[in-house]
């Protein structure tokens, strides 16, 4: 078989495969042999043998820079463009790939219409990527659940602590009215715990939804006064135990309404008060300030205890704390607070005061003027 025959047979094979061969000669890329049909769909002018490749594809123009480098290097070197999509004149799309190579000193550009193999690769990638995304979502869903679960345990624990403290105080108490009060507190805490257990059993899913979806929370309205009093009662036994006073400052508490679910708000306030109590020196005080500021209510809870070290401050509310360093129990309730507050378009933050002490603040939109 002569070289000419071999060449024409090779050309025929490429033609059957639908691969267009362009030869680089005197500054232009010319088609070699019969252009495949699909080529005309994109470049209607490339119909005749010897036609030049039009410079209308921005992708190819960019690839030709790599191709020229490859041709200059010569030898075995090849450059592949990777797949790209080209629009046909009638509005369809074709996936193509270009290869630059040198054969016998001749610079060659192959243009291939990608077919079944490419489609198979694409569908593999589709599945792989969908799986990765589903995995990421599941992971983050689990983190949220973990936080909620922890918060519920914390709440049950707090209720139990109230029962224990009340019982201990009753033991020491002589005043019958005071004993009556403590008994009522203890019995309320017991009921609370029972409610919580029921919640865990029945409403866990709904609770998660309520926290995540804003449908329920967007319409929520809570009288700040009610939530503050409920939170105050929640923490009263622990405060009494440590001899710490809770001082409220601000006026018009009962006129203030915030756009947040009342259970969530009470939980947030109780958590922040418990936090402050932990830092507060025994016999000292914790202050709860509230004020209305341009369509929002700002609540500040401060203590005079030692300020948190900076590395802790940075991660107090961070989701990353659970993701990266594993669940840090003490931060989970604060993360719950953050999620609950942000879900109703509020903000939560911490600041240490230079004169010492810690302040947690919560900014909540009022129902009339959601932020």
């Amino acid at each position, binding site marked *: 078989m002569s070289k000419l025959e071999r060449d024409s047979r090779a050309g025929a094979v490429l033609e059957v495969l639908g691969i267009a061969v362009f030869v680089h000669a005197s500054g232009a890329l010319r088609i070699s042999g019969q252009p495949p049909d699909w080529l005309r769909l994109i470049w209607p002018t490339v119909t005749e043998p010897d036609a030049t490749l039009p410079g209308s594809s921005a992708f190819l123009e960019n690839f030709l820079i790599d191709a020229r480098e490859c041709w200059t290097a010569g030898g075995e070197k090849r450059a592949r463009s990777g797949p790209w*999509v080209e629009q046909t004149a009638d509005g369809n799309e074709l996936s193509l790939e270009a290869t630059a190579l040198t054969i016998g000193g001749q610079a060659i550009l192959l243009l291939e219409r990608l077919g079944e193999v490419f489609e198979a690769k694409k569908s593999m990638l*589709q599945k792989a990527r*969908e799986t990765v995304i589903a995995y990421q979502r599941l992971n983050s869903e689990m983190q949220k659940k973990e936080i909620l679960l922890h918060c519920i345990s914390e709440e049950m624990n707090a209720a139990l602590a109230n029962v224990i403290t009340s019982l201990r105080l009753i033991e020491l108490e002589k005043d019958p009215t005071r004993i009556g009060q403590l008994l009522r507190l203890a019995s309320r805490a017991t009921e609370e715990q029972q409610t919580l257990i029921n919640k865990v059993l029945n409403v866990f899913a709904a609770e998660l939804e309520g926290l995540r979806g804003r449908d329920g929370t967007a319409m929520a309205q809570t009288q700040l006064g009610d939530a503050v009093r409920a939170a105050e009662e929640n923490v009263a036994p622990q405060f009494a135990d440590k001899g710490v006073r809770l001082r409220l400052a601000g006026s018009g508490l009962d006129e203030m309404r915030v756009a947040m679910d009342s259970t969530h708000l009470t939980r947030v306030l109780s958590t922040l008060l418990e936090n402050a109590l932990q830092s507060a020196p025994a016999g000292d005080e914790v202050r709860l300030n509230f004020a209305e500021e341009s369509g929002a209510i700002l609540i500040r809870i401060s203590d005079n205890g030692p300020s948190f070290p900076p590395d802790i401050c940075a991660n107090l509310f961070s*989701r990353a704390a659970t993701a990266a360093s594993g669940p840090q129990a003490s931060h989970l309730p604060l993360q719950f607070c953050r999620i609950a507050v942000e879900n109703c378009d509020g903000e939560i933050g911490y600041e240490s005061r230079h004169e010492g002490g810690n302040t947690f603040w919560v900014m909540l939109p009022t129902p009339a003027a959601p932020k």
Partner: protein
Amino acid sequence: MIQKKICMIGASGVGKTSLISKFVHSMFSDKYLTTVGVKIDKKTVAVDGAEVMLMIWDLEGDDDYQRLQTSYLRGSSGYLLVADGTRQITLDQAIEIQGRVTAAIGPVPFLLALNKADLVSQWEIDQSRVDDLTARGWKSFKTSAKEGAGVEEAFVELSRQMIQPP
């Protein structure tokens, strides 16, 4: 008319293709069809009285399966770095990719698009992280390829930065 090449860069499934589709064709689909390879779209925008023809390169998501090919970035005047606001990890990925892009083509204008802003209840990206990036000089937009919010604004702002370098 001024012609500028921009690239869509970011992890898989963050909404690069959807942002282009909304911006260029005013269309959105909920169905996820991953991009394999490159597709180029064109759209003219008016920026402060000037017409800019954007050549928008939709690149495939950078992930473990397929790495961003830096040769595609050649000649880019800017890029839109896209993250999915409902997947915090895609912001970390965007930051990492941005480093690679800068190493490849130098400091060209870019904007961070925090996409899927319509999915408020699933939002995961902390504002404090965005503030940190802003402090580093990053400009970011919340976008929704679904509802259109911020989409045109992001492309126009990127164009503005490309034609009038600071």
